[in-house]
């Protein structure tokens, strides 16, 4: 389903979203045809997929009705009514994302309208109060505490739950991973120079991404954020596995058990920018310079491989520490 909003001559648009990323609850990576069935959450609507360089599939969009306060950075009161769009994506049959977003547009009226008015504008939340785009974007990003004004994360979470209730998953857990949250806000303006900023928040599971782009780039900006969330999750999960492996070694247990599935199942999925439109690639390039995503990744993967190799040598030498002292 396409999401279209009417013309907005009022100036820059704000789009906000939250992406939750986790592992597909299955021992092995899911084959493409399974992914296709699992993501068929809206009858009559197709699942989109592409195969290269890693398979990637997106479920049809769902709508959720909203009538709530909106956060603003200045704490000025804002209120909106409309719908959020949400879908799920699966990458490499292994990583599942729930992604919800809404476009915040000034409303023509200051009262709630008939429901069909909002259904004709899927993914648009009309703001019945006066609000500045930057103020709304930054307000949304800052509002990731326990009781957010607009809770797109909960909508993403429910998409994940719904997808995973598919009967044919075995619900096995090959490796431990945390669910991460990426909140993003894009200000879309034809006058603006494209840029992205990622912040690791104090809550370890939360990252916020602020994007500036031109209005035509909205779908690409969303894909960029999903791709960013996915790679950030990979980094988080691999770091977690490494620290678990360190703990295991310290306690005299075999770290390879923890690391092997990570190396086998996650390392091949590192393909930053592969599913991102070329227009958005400069944003990736920027993040590669700082904080240097791929560089971090390579270091982590090398550490995992070293640990595994070291353990293999230990085992070959009859379990004695190596090099022998």
């Amino acid at each position: 389903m396409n999401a279209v909003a009417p013309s907005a001559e009022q100036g820059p648009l704000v789009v906000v979203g939250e992406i939750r990323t986790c592992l597909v609850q299955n021992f092995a990576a899911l084959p493409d045809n399974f992914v296709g069935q699992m993501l068929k959450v809206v009858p009559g609507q197709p699942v989109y997929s592409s195969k290269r360089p890693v398979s990637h599939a997106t479920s049809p969009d769902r709508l959720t009705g909203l009538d709530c306060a909106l956060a603003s950075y200045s704490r000025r009161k804002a209120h909106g009514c409309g719908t959020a769009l949400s879908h799920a994506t699966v990458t490499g049959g292994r990583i599942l994302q729930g992604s919800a977003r809404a476009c915040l547009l000034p409303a023509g009226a200051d009262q709630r309208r008939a429901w069909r008015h909002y259904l004709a504008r899927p993914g648009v939340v009309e703001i019945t109060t006066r609000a500045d785009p930057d103020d709304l974007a930054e307000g949304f990003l800052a509002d990731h505490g326990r009781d957010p004004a607009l809770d797109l994360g909960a909508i993403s979470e429910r998409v994940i739950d719904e997808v995973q209730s598919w009967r044919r998953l075995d619900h096995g857990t090959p490796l431990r991973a945390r669910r991460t949250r990426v909140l993003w806000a894009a200000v879309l303006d034809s006058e603006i120079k494209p840029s992205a900023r990622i912040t690791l928040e104090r809550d370890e599971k939360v990252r916020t991404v602020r994007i500036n782009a031109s209005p035509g780039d909205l779908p690409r900006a969303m894909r960029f954020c999903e791709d960013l969330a996915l790679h950030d999750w990979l980094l988080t999960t691999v770091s977690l596995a490494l620290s678990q492996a360190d703990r295991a070694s310290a306690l005299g247990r075999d770290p390879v058990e923890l690391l092997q599935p990570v190396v086998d199942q996650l390392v091949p999925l590192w393909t930053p920018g592969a599913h991102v439109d070329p227009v958005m690639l400069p944003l990736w390039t920027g993040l590669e310079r700082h904080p240097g995503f791929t560089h971090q990744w390579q270091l982590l993967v090398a550490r995992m491989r070293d640990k595994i190799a070291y353990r293999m040598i230990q085992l070959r030498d009859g379990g004695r520490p190596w090099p022998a002292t």
Partner: protein
Amino acid sequence: MDVVFREKSDTPQIEEVALSHLSIEVGHLYREDLEDSDERLREQFRRAAPWIETAARTVKSRHGGKARVSTCFLVDDYTPADSQRKPAGPPSQIVEMLVETARSQGFTLDYIVRESGCALSADKPGVEPSAQVDLADIVAGMIVAEPDAGDNGSRPPTADSGWLANGKRAPKPDESAAMAPNPWQPPEEYGRRNHSIFVDVELWAKVEDWTSGAALLRRDFSCAFLAAVWQLMRLGMLRNEGKPVAQPYRLGTDPNLPAEWPDLPTVLQVNERAAPFSAYRAFSLLPHWYLPTEHAVRHILEHLSLDAAIVRQIAARAANERITLPESVTERLGYVFLDEC
């Protein structure tokens, strides 16, 4: 400027369906009523005939002599598995009766549609149930519940209970504040002006289906819900993964109809030269006791998220033909509720 969330390359091809200017529903009766005698049908068609003529004339005066108008009749044959309905006679008899009765009242019937085909649709005779398109499911998947004030996404919308309301239901006495002197509180229509007209419509009942040996939950759809599917079919609003559904099956000169109702295609074209079945607007001539059903239909339609690509496609085609179409599909529906005279 448009806000589009999906890349162009991802957009599925939405195939077009042929559209008339107007689709006229000339009646809607139970299959049994037709099998018993042609009396009710004759009466319905007698009352409908002048309106059909008026409607066709109006369309032609606005859009020229070549304006496309088609007529259709809906046979209610939907049978939830455990309901006690009379076994059906051969469809050919009813088809002939419908065509002949229309002719005797001075108009041509173009399409005969079976209501159960609005739940599971088929384009041809004899399609296996498993190969039919779950149209009712597709429409059920479009329902978006209206938010209550304060809904911010944190809580899931109230579950799939099979009912759809246009407001906040009255709290059950035990849920309201304890010890209140009068525990009853009224329901409230969302966005009401001063007073509420609260509507709560049953869409389906969940029943256990034991046909496969184990209990599976099956939905038995309400008449109102299937009628909503029917109106969307008439407005050309439904697709299955971009493909047209329930396309008319041409009976041809040598009618070789299946002997059983469930083997009929959903839409049977009984007039070789008929204008397209679906149309920009739909007009229904119904007995007056269909008023509550049609009110429920409009209520359901106002809670559907229609495929935006289809909506746009039809709007663009209408604009091409210089037809003004209201944004909302419910405003494309017109009725005359026929009285006894």
